[in-house]
């Protein structure tokens, strides 16, 4: 069972093109992904230092239209922004 570091995940997703949503909450924030000025998707990430556990990885991977392993690769770095966009494109989510 994998866990992700929230700060590193947040930082890495920002590097992959995610931007912070304007909507705010006490315990979490949303990161949004735009492509060619179009809103594609958003994923929720918790505030604080608590590890991102299995059920939250499941939620974030679904929101990013990835399977769990792909999402972990995206969050830890091996999956590049280009690869991510390719996956979304193949699923018809960029049109």
């Amino acid at each position, binding site marked *: 069972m994998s866990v992700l570091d929230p700060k590193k995940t947040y930082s890495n997703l920002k590097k992959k093109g995610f931007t912070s949503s304007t909507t705010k909450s006490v315990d979490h924030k949303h990161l949004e992904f735009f492509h060619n000025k179009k809103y594609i998707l*958003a994923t929720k990430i918790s505030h604080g230092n608590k590890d991102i556990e299995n059920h939250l990885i*499941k939620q974030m991977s*679904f929101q990013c239209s990835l399977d769990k392993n792909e999402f972990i690769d995206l969050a830890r770095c091996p999956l590049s922004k280009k690869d991510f966009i390719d996956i979304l494109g193949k699923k*018809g989510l960029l049109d």
Partner: protein
Amino acid sequence: MKIDLNNGVFIEIGGELGKYNTLPIDILVKIAQDLQELVFTLAKHDLPSEEAIDISNFKIELAGFKKGSAVPKFAYTPRTENKTGLFWQVHRNTVNEKFDKLIEISNTGDYGKLVELYPEPIKRNPIVENLYSFVNGFRSAPVNFVDYDEVIEKTTPIYKINRFKPSVKKELISELKEITETEVESDEAVGKIKITKKAGKTQCRIIDYYSGKKFSLEYAPDVIVAGTIKYFLKHPLRCLFEKEDNYYIIQCEILGIIGTGLTEDETENSFAEEFDFVYKRLNSLDTASLTNHNLLIRNILIQIVEKVEE
């Protein structure tokens, strides 16, 4: 170990059968065949299964015949072609030890001890059958395994052969059932369960179940409550509800909304929060900023939400 097939064992047969110091051929043949079968059976079941065994090494021969009633002598064959393999002598000794124990049991007449010597029916059954045939093959004649003094030509009893009762044999033989390995198949299903509570005890009974490949559990709210906001829906929103590992999932594929949590309530709240976020976010963006996929989601949301109360 009192008797030794390496050097030969003397079997003194008294009574009517041996009173002429001779033995009828058919009786001699039967005794020899039963003894041979018993020794072969011991060789098959008492030697290490991982070692190569040449069963011919355990052939016995008539090695002598003495008077004083009828006293045939049987021994392992001395022929060199029946001494093959590295451990033929060790194996012969092992078989002889077991043979000695069986005859010792016969001496006590307590054949029930065979269960202790051979707890596994797969070994015990053939040994019981062959020992029964051997010890009862002398008819009613008194029989002893004896030591024979060649100088004074006298026998000294070692073990008396006692009759093996059919009823005891029957108790010793266990029915062997062939166990066929059945393939284990596992599948997941969803079903209806009747829950009965009586005197503080809860009983669950499966009423019916359906393949998990075709059917699933659903979560279908007609009001979604996200904090202080209530979304009233025109129709229940049918979502997949399942448990994966140690957490729950509520997932609406068509809207791309998911809630997860460690409890059902946490999952429901998570789903409601996401529904609220997606509804508000998609409605805050102009059409040009939405992909076809997100436009579809926004349209569905507009269609299914009847009213929103804050």
